[in-house]
């Protein structure tokens, strides 16, 4: 059972059933039981348990049996094998021992005693007796072979071969016996050498070669099972004998096998566990047993393949398994049977319990097992019986309770209905009372009901339900007092519930005939009556009455219901009161917040604020209209109207500022500073405009006061005589206070805006000043524009005064006609009496209220008339610009209407005026500084030019002096060269003449020789002369260079000079090279005026430059292949007081490095003899120093070269002083 009780006691299982301690399910109402699931579970558990137990027992038994039979079997096999091995070993031992004994005989004789022959016979005999010995040899005590007898060879006697170092001798002598290693003869028969020493000292050693075939026979005879075998291994682990002789012949080494290792270890005395299972030489798993062959140190092994050894064991295991399976099947069948017997009654019990649980209490469980299960079933049956009984009892009780509940529910429904009505219609008391009465009547079984309120000792009916009409009429006629004897009277006195069982039976009706009681009985037909007081904190506020037309007293419950209604009525009344208060308050707050919102949304604007205030004030105070008056000094102005009749508004508008009517509301407020409230204004002696035009009766005037100063008043009017309530007055007062704040805010905002405007304007002007330093026009424009804007003026002028004469420099907003007038106006002296004149005289700002009202205008002064008539100037402002106490100009600002400028406006124009003065002064200073700077810069530039020229000229001058010195020094020797050369030619001529007769006498050969010599000498001298002249030319050029400035200045035409030079140069080149051709382009400025130059020197410059140009194009022409067209172009221009000459050729051009040095003396690019290197240097001197001009060059290699010479017309700067 334990397996089934896992769910625990009465735990709710996941599938929604309650399971008891016995593992049976009790189905819950509404759930169905799934039988097979439960049955299967318990049943399976039992079956599994039985099968498991039996199977475990059988298995354990089988396994033990197998294990032990295996062990025993193995031990038995090993034992048999070992015995076999030991037997075989013993056989082999015996075989060897016997041979040894036989040989022993041969060693008994000493060598001295017997003859060799004797020994031979002994040996032969031995061979016969022991077939295993194949050969026997005898060694004497010294190890020399004396005799050898063999089956295979001839006997040898006395060979005397020395074996003294052979192991078979040494080992035998040492150990008496020696077993040699196994070896093979004829590739198949195993042999071993066996040597035995005699016991005597000189006995010598007998050596026998033993055939070991016997051992092989022994081994082959051993049979172990089918495939088992035996083999022998020597002390070194080598295989000696094996049924498979081939293994032996291959000299197989078995020492690595585990069983061999173990056996060897055992023989060596080591504690080694004999190996039972191992691998044989073929690698099969075998059962193995070993036995030592003691004198030889060999081992005998017997082995059986393991599968063969265990074959019977496996058969036994199979049998056991079959048995086990059979046992399991049996156990399973038994388990099925047992489980079935256990589960069936439990099922029956469970089904019965389920039915009981399902409510079928009449059913009984029938189990006749006679054990605990039957007892359990009986207990269930008893339980069901008792349950049946208690059910019947319970049903009766439920009926009673249901009845009570219905009643109570009815009452609660009524109450909740009443409460629903209360909550649905808050503040609506009629429907609440109505609903209460209706419910009270219905539930209490009353015929009608009345609800009366107690107010100041009077009772006022407020609710009637099903009341007979006549009685209702009587009741509603008026609030009335009740006699203390009456029910309400008693209730009034005691504040306690009053019930009268029969009103008709009381003396009040019979004897006293109390009218109310009579009305009760006769008008309403009431008999039984209950009045329940309505108390609010012990204060009587009314009564709840219900009536029956029959005498039947109301039950306690019914009265309690009425009482509860009464107290709810109290709450409802109270709620209604609170609600109405709340609404009022909300309304006021809404109004206030609306006003505040208007204030905040229109800052600075007062009209919407006043409008909103008046709208709210008139609405909440139920006033007809309202007015706001603002105070200025002693007068007031009506600033806002709401709801006022149009006539009144119009009247107020026309009235403008007014003094308050003495004794009137404004006057009173002005005097007292307090609220003025009048219920009927019409009662006053003099009716106010509001009374006359607006029909005002009641009025409420509230002052708007700021720090004890009256700013204005808010007045609301009613057109009927009805005073305003306190709350209403308070509301208007709060509006007035807010109005004060709004007015103050508007004022501050206005000031702030104004100040901001002025600051913005000032900063704009300052910005203009700073961004256009030295320029006055934009500054004045900005000033004037800002001044006009801030002063709300239409026209403005800025004038400057120079020597008392005024002249406008900037105008703005000037009408076209007036602008025309001003344009024609010369600088003027302000006529006396004008604003400008006054300003000049007084040196301060003049504010003219109305230009049209001045004497000058009336007198027809032109200027004054023009300003007013053409410029529409009325209110005018003249602000002087003062510098060092003098008027240097003025701002003149005009308005087209008569409206004075405020102090602030005047102040801002004055500040502009002083800024203007500063700006003018700054501009003047700036211009001075600029002029000074320009002058200084120009001077500096001139100085730099002069300095550069000086440096260059100094450089050139020193070079020139040097050149001149050199020239003179060369010139003298050169003169000699030239002179003597020339002279020598003459002398030769003379010689020829003088020697002519002598020569004629000579033979022709000699004469010819002399002639030839003379001719050669003459030629040489000519060459000397020629080169001398060349040198002379150079020297002359140098001298001319140094001389400079010697020529006279003349006024010449540059064009003519160039033309002449060009032709000269061209023909000079043509004279040297007939093939030379060049296109000469002349671009002369025909308007060029003659200029003063030194004509020779300038011509020299031109010749030089043209020569260079021709040279350049010739060089290029030489290099080109025909497509080249040489051009030299000359351009002259008049340029800014200079004559510019451009000489351009399209020759080879000048590389930059050459350009740097080309003006230096002796620098030339021409081959030796073609140029002196002085041409450009001289030209430079002539142009720059002699003529104060400049020479520059622009060039592109293989493109062009252009020299530009500029000659000034008025020479200043460096003069040619050389």
């Amino acid at each position, binding site marked *: 059972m334990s397996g089934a009780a896992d769910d625990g006691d009465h735990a709710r299982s996941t599938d929604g059933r309650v399971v008891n301690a016995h593992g049976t399910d009790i189905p819950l109402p509404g759930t169905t039981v799934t039988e097979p699931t439960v049955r299967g579970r318990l049943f399976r558990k039992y079956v599994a348990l039985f099968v498991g137990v039996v199977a475990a027992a059988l298995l354990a038994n089988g396994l033990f049996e197998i294990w032990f039979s295996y062990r025993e079997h193995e031990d038995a096999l090993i034992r048999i094998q070992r015995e076999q091995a030991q037997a075989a070993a013993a056989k082999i031992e015996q075989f060897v021992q016997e041979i040894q004994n036989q040989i022993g005989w041969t060693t008994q004789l000493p060598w001295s005693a017997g003859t060799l022959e004797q020994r031979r016979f002994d040996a032969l005999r031995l061979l016969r007796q022991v077939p295993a010995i194949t050969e026997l040899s005898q060694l004497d005590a010294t190890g020399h072979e004396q005799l050898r007898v063999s089956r295979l060879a001839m006997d040898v006697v006395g060979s005397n071969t020395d074996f003294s170092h052979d192991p078979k001798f040494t080992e035998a002598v040492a150990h008496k016996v020696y077993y040699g290693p196994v070896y093979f003869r004829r590739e198949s028969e195993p042999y071993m050498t066996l040597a035995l020493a005699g016991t005597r000292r000189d006995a010598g050693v007998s050596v026998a070669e033993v055939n070991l075939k016997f051992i092989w026979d022994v081994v082959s005879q051993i049979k172990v099972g089918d495939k088992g075998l035996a083999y022998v291994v020597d002390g070194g682990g080598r295989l000696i004998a094996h049924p498979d002789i081939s293994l032996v012949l291959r000299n197989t080494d078995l020492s690595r096998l585990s069983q061999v290792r173990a056996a060897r270890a055992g023989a060596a005395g080591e504690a080694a566990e004999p190996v039972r299972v191992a691998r044989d030489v073929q690698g099969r798993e075998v059962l193995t047993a070993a036995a030592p062959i003691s004198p030889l140190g060999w081992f005998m092994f017997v082995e059986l393949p393991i599968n063969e050894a265990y074959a019977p064991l496996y058969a036994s295991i199979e049998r056991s398994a079959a048995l086990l399976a059979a046992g399991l099947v049996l156990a399973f069948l038994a388990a099925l049977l047992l489980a079935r017997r256990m589960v069936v009654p439990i099922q029956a019990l469970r089904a019965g319990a389920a039915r009981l649980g399902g409510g079928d209490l009449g059913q009984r469980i029938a189990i006749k097992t006679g054990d605990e299960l039957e007892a359990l079933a009986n207990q269930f049956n008893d339980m069901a019986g008792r349950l049946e009984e208690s059910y019947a009892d319970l049903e009766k009780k439920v009926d009673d309770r249901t009845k009570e509940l219905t009643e109570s529910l009815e009452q609660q429904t009524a109450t909740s209905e009443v409460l629903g009505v209360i909550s649905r219609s808050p503040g609506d008391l009629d429907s609440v009372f109505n609903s209460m009465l209706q419910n009270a009547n219905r539930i209490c079984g009353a015929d009608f009901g009345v609800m009366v309120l107690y107010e100041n000792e009077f009772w006022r009916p407020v609710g009637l339900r099903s009341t007979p009409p006549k009685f209702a009429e009587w009741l509603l006629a008026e609030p009335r007092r009740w006699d203390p004897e009456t029910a309400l009277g008693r209730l009034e006195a005691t504040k306690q519930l009053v019930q009268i069982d029969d009103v008709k039976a009381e003396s009040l009706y019979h004897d006293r005939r109390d009218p109310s009681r009579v009305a009760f009985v006769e008008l309403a037909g009431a008999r039984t009556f209950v009045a329940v007081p309505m108390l609010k904190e012990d204060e009587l506020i009314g009564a709840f009455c219900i009536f029956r037309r029959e005498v039947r007293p109301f039950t306690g419950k019914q009265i309690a219901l009425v009482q509860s209604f009464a107290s709810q009525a109290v709450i409802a009344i109270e709620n209604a009161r609170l609600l109405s208060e709340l609404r009022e308050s909300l309304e006021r707050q809404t109004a206030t917040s609306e006003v505040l919102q208007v204030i905040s949304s229109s800052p600075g604007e007062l009209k919407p604020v006043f409008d909103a205030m008046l709208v709210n004030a008139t609405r909440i105070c139920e006033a007809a209209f309202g007015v706001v008056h603002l105070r200025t000094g002693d007068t007031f102005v009506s600033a806002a109207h709401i709801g006022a009749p149009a006539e009144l508004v119009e009247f107020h508008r026309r009235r403008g500022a007014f003094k308050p009517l003495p004794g009137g509301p404004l006057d009173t407020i002005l005097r007292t500073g307090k609220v003025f409230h009048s219920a009927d204004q019409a009662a006053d002696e003099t009716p106010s405009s509001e009374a006359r035009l607006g029909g005002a009766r009641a009025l409420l005037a509230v002052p708007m006061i700021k720090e004890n100063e009256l700013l204005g008043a808010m007045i609301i009017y009613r057109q009927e005589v009805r005073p305003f309530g306190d709350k209403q007055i308070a509301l208007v007062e709060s509006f007035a206070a807010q109005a004060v704040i709004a007015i103050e805010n508007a004022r501050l905002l206005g000031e702030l805006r104004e100040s901001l405007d002025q600051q913005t304007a000032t900063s704009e002007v300052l910005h203009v000043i700073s961004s256009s330093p030295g320029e006055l026009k934009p500054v004045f424009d900005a000033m004037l524009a800002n001044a006009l804007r801030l002063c709300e003026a239409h026209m403005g002028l800025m004038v400057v005064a120079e020597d008392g004469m005024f002249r406008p420099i900037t105008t703005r907003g000037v009408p076209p006609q007036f602008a025309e007038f001003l344009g024609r106006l010369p600088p003027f002296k302000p006529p006396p009496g004008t604003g400008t004149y006054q300003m000049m005289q007084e040196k301060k700002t003049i504010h003219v209220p109305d230009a049209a009202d001045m004497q000058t205008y009336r007198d027809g002064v032109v200027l004054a008339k023009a300003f007013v008539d053409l410029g529409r100037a009325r209110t005018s402002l003249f602000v002087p610009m003062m510098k060092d106490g003098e008027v240097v100009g003025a701002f003149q600002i005009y308005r087209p209407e008569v409206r004075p400028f405020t102090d602030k406006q005047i102040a801002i124009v004055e500040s502009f005026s002083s800024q203007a003065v500063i700006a003018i002064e700054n501009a003047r200073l700036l211009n001075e500084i600029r002029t000074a700077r320009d002058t200084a810069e120009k001077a500096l530039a001139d100085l730099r030019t002069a300095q550069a020229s000086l440096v260059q000229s100094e450089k050139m001058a020193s070079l020139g002096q040097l050149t001149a010195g050199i020239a*003179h020094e060369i*010139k*003298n020797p050169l*003169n*000699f060269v*030239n*002179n*003597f050369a020339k*002279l020598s030619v003459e002398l030769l001529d003379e010689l020829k003449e003088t020697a002519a007769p002598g020569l004629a006498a000579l033979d022709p050969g000699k004469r010819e020789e002399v002639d030839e010599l003379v001719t050669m000498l003459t030629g040489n001298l000519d060459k000397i002369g020629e080169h001398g002249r060349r040198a002379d030319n150079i020297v002359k050029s140098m001298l001319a260079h140094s001389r400079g400035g010697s020529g006279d200045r003349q006024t010449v035409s540059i064009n003519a000079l160039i033309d002449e030079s060009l032709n000269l140069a061209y023909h000079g080149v043509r004279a040297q090279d007939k093939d030379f051709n060049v296109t000469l382009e002349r671009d002369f400025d025909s308007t060029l005026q003659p200029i003063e130059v030194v004509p020779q020197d300038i011509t020299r410059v031109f010749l030089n430059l043209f020569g260079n140009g021709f040279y350049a194009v010739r060089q290029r022409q030489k290099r080109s292949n025909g497509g080249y067209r040489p051009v030299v172009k000359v351009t002259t221009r008049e340029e800014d007081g200079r004559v510019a000459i451009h000489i351009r050729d399209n020759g080879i051009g000048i590389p930059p490095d050459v350009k740097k040095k080309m003006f230096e003396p002796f620098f030339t690019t021409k081959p030796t003899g073609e140029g002196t290197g002085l041409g450009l240097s001289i030209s430079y001197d002539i142009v720059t120093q002699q003529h104060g001009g400049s020479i520059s060059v622009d060039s592109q290699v293989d493109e062009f070269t252009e020299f530009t010479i500029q000659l000034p017309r008025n020479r200043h700067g460096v003069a040619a002083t050389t």
Partner: protein
Amino acid sequence: MSVSIFVVDDEPDVADLFRQRFRREMREGKYVLHFALSAAEALEKLQGEIEPHLIVMLSDINMPGMDGLSLLQEIKKLRPDLPVMMVTAYDDAERRQKAKAYGAVDFLTKPVDFDFLKAQLSQLPSISSA
């Protein structure tokens, strides 16, 4: 009837040049040439007799020691009537002017144009008178 010409120049080769140039005239006995290598030597020779009659002195200007222009002044003190020609490589206005002021009859530039010189010599009064 030969006359003397006195040439002062610090260059010794000037003597050879003049001798060769005037070789015909000398051969014909027309002129005898005298030379001095410095102003001092010239003045010394002038102190003594110069045979035959000295008709003209030719002097270089640039010379070590006393220069030609100073020599001219000295000569004019000794022999105011003696015509002196200045021969120089420096052809400039200043020297020309000074030479003229000091009483030089001519101002020749080197290299000397001998044809021109011979023509000038033939114009000299003493020759014409001779």
